[in-house]
């Protein structure tokens, strides 16, 4: 049981490049989330998914896209990388929807730098 895994761990992009951050969970959780953590700040929600085929925007969705074709995978896509997207990205999952019912489990994060 690996929990939530993320790849890559580190990545450097040039402005305008695209990339996909991968996230996989093996806990059969319905809910998955993407957060970003800027230096000296807490985490902010980018997108979340309540199940395969269903996604919704969080607090800071601009510049990102997501898809959820399976229960296990929730990739985050950056189409035109900008320096403002330099951050650490965390994927998380939970069994149920609300914080009342369950805890969010986090992956180890991806450190992305856009130059």
């Amino acid at each position: 049981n690996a929990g939530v895994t993320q790849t890559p761990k580190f990545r450097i992009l040039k402005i305008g490049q695209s990339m996909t951050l991968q996230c996989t969970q093996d806990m059969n959780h319905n809910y998955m989330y993407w957060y970003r953590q800027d230096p000296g700040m807490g985490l902010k929600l980018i997108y979340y998914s309540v199940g395969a085929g269903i996604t919704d925007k969080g607090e800071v969705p601009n510049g990102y896209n997501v898809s959820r074709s399976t229960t296990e995978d929730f990739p985050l896509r950056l189409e035109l990388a900008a320096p403002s997207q330099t951050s650490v990205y965390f994927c998380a999952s939970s069994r149920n929807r609300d914080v009342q019912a369950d805890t969010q489990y986090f992956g180890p994060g991806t450190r992305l730098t856009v130059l």
Partner: protein
Amino acid sequence: AQTVTQSQPEMSVQEAETVTLSCTYDTSESDYYLFWYKQPPSRQMILVIRQEAYKQQNATENRFSVNFQKAAKSFSLKISDSQLGDAAMYFCASGQGGSEKLVFGKGTKLTVNP
């Protein structure tokens, strides 16, 4: 909108001593939940403790306990018998009942001195 404030960017404690990390929050909801997450240098976010707002009793998990003051909207974390492995960033977070969204504070960096 919910907000979470951690006013201590950094704290330090001697090994085996006790330290308290502060957190205040603001919400207009009556059904909400509070959390402390630990983020060690590995960057993994680990849940330390959670508190349901409707419960008056303070949550405890081994050496970790909270002081939940609902009227003051305060939610501090006490770490007893501090260990070197407790060194990490600690984030306070709140969530609204019926919602999947968590709001995080900026974090407190805890150093444990041997």
